[in-house]
């Protein structure tokens, strides 16, 4: 079993749809959770960063962490064609940084 699991997609949705992207993990010591967006032929860019459980909202994006279920989600409201990218979840323990564990990514296509 991989340490972080993520549905690879591809996921295709119409413009304006609500998108839900999810990751599950096995290590209960993970404390910091991140979502990165990666456009084709580009490096990942940080989208959302959360600590411990709960929700965090930033514009059209909401990150949700459920540590009891070892499950994190990223919701995109009013999805746009410019949201078409691969979304990577990442997480790390409270050890100041060296051991980030990434999911394999979910490819999202938002169709106009």
């Amino acid at each position, binding site marked *: 079993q991989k340490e972080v699991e993520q549905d*690879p997609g591809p996921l295709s949705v119409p413009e304006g749809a609500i998108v839900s992207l999810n990751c599950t993990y096995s290590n209960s010591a993970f404390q*910091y959770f991140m979502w990165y967006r990666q456009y084709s*032929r580009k*490096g*990942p860019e940080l989208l959302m960063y959360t600590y411990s459980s709960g929700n965090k909202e930033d514009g059209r994006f909401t990150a949700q962490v459920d540590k009891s279920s070892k499950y994190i989600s990223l919701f995109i409201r009013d999805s746009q064609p410019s949201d078409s990218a691969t979304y990577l979840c990442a997480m790390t323990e409270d*050890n*100041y*940084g060296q051991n*980030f564990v*990434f999911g394999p990514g979910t490819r999202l296509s938002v169709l106009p």
Partner: protein
Amino acid sequence: NAGVTQTPKFRVLKTGQSMTLLCAQDMNHEYMYWYRQDPGMGLRLIHYSVGEGTTAKGEVPDGYNVSRLKKQNFLLGLESAAPSQTSVYFCASSYSIIRDIWDPRISYNSPLHFGNGTRLTVT
């Protein structure tokens, strides 16, 4: 402010050849990392550095060497390239910690800032 810059962007090597991938960051970050990205595998850590003059092994270090002679640069070397090293290589950097803006006594792991990758093919 360029962030993290990687050179070259593309490279094709023959088996057994050597090369060095260059990474430079202008954000004064203490930590730097080299990852490889392969389909279905996610990003895997090759080597990392917590400061100038220091390096450490990550998850998949075999076949690679690194050096961090200056704080802003992190070099990844392939001494004898193999087809299994065909991949996209990403350099990243981060602060060691970041402090809560409302309560500086609270600190967090710093997220990673990535370059745009080097696409390497070994034939």
